[in-house]
C-alpha cells in the first residue's frame, strides 16, 4: 500500500486551524487518498489553534464518505506534538461525527434532498 505523510500546517499555510474553508483543504486530500486506497498519516503539530469548525470539516465529514473500518485502514491521525486538550477535541469531533454521520444515512439524506 502506498503511504503518504501530510502536515496540516503546510496544507493550510497557517498556524491557525480555525475555519471550515481550511478544513475543506485537508478533507479533500484525505478523502481523495482513501478513494485511491493510499494510506495517509496526518500531523496536526505546529498548529496553535484547532477549532471544531475546522475539525468538523477536515475530519468529521470523512464519516460521510466511507465506513469506520475503511477510514481506519487508510488514515492515521498522529498525536505527535499535540497537547491533550487538542487531542481531546479531535476525539470529541470524531465521536460526535460517528454518532451523527454514516455513509448510508448520508447518501439517503443527500438523495432525498435531491
Amino acid at each position, binding site marked *: 500500500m502506498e503511504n503518504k505523510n501530510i502536515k496540516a500546517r503546510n496544507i493550510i499555510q497557517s498556524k*491557525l486551524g480555525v475555519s*471550515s474553508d481550511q478544513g475543506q483543504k485537508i478533507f479533500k486530500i484525505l478523502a481523495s487518498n482513501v478513494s485511491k486506497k493510499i494510506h495517509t498519516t496526518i500531523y496536526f503539530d505546529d498548529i*496553535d489553534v484547532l477549532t*471544531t469548525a475546522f475539525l468538523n470539516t477536515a475530519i468529521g*465529514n470523512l464519516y*460521510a464518505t466511507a465506513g469506520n473500518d475503511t477510514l481506519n485502514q487508510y488514515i492515521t491521525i498522529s*498525536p*505527535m506534538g499535540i*497537547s491533550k486538550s487538542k487531542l481531546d477535541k479531535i476525539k470529541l469531533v470524531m465521536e460526535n461525527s460517528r454518532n451523527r454521520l454514516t455513509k448510508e*444515512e448520508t447518501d439517503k439524506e443527500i438523495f432525498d434532498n435531491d
Partner: protein
Amino acid sequence: MSKIGHPFVLNYAIIYLITNYGSDFLNADREYNEIVLPKNINTDITSIDYIQGIFNNIKENTILDFSKIKFIDGELTPFLGINIRNLQNLGINFKIRKNEQSDVSHFLTKNGFFYKILKSSKVWDYFNNAIQYNEINCRNQNEINDYISNVVFEQIKDKSNKSNDFMSGFSNAIFELADNVKTHSESNYITMCGQFYPKKKLLTFSLGDNGITIPRVVMTKINDFSFDSDSDAIQWSTLKGNTTKKKYKAGGLGLYVILKSIMENNGSITIVSNNGYWKRESSGEEIKHEMKNSFPGTLVIFQMDTSITNNINVFDDGEYELKF
C-alpha cells in the same frame, strides 16, 4: 454689560463645562433627545434588560449622557456598542455627554470605546486593567489573532499570570465564537472587549455581534422542536451535538467546547440573544430568564482563570490513539 456676558465669566463657564462634561457638550443640539444612562451598568439580567429597554425606545438622534455612571463592567461595552451601531445603521446619530473627572469616563475613553463607537476623544494608551474595545471582521483571522496576542495577552503583562493552557483555551473560544458568527448569525463583524483582574488572575471578556440571534436561527432551522422561550433555545445550542447544520454535515460542538472549557476552570458564561438570557456557573447553577426587551444580536460574556495549567501535556506517537 450684564454680569453673565462678561468675558471672564464666559471663559470661566466654558472651562468649567469642558472640565466637567468634556468638549462634546459643544456639539449638543436641540434636535437631539437626551438620555441619562444609569449609575450602575453590570451583567445582571436586571441591568441588561433595563438598558436594552432604553435603547429599544430610541427613535431619534440622541445625546447619551454617560456622566452619571458610577460603575460599568468593562466587558459590557460591546453590549452598548452593538446597540449604538444598530441604531446608527438605522440613521440615528449619537452625541455623548461625559464627566471627564469620573473613572468611568476615563475608562471608556482609554479602552477606545468612545473613539471607536462615537469618534470622540481618541486616546490609545491603556488604563489599568482595561482591554481595548474593538470591532473586527469575523473572517479576518489575522486581525483576530493580532487582537488576541497583542492586545488581550499583552494586557496580562505578568507572564506568571497567563498559562499556555489559558492562552490556548482563550484563543480557541474566540475563534469558535467568531466562526459561529460567520456561519450562523450572518453578521460580518464581531465586537470584543474585556477586563483583567490581576489579583484574582481572572479575565472577564465578551464577544458579540448584531446578526441573526441564536433563538431565531434555532427556531427557524430546527423544525422538530418547539421551544418555550428564547433562553431554552440558547441552552439547547450549548448542548453536545446540537446543531442547526444539515444532517450530513459534521457540527454541533462549538458552544459545547467553550462551555466545557470554561466550566472545567471555575469560570462562568452568560449568553444574551434576542429575549433570552442564559447563564451557567462552574458550580452547575444555571440561570434562565426572558428579557422584556430584545437585544438585536448575540453577546457571549465569559470569565476565565488566566493561570490554569491542566492540559499542558504534549504527546508522542503511540501514547494516544485516535480511531475512526
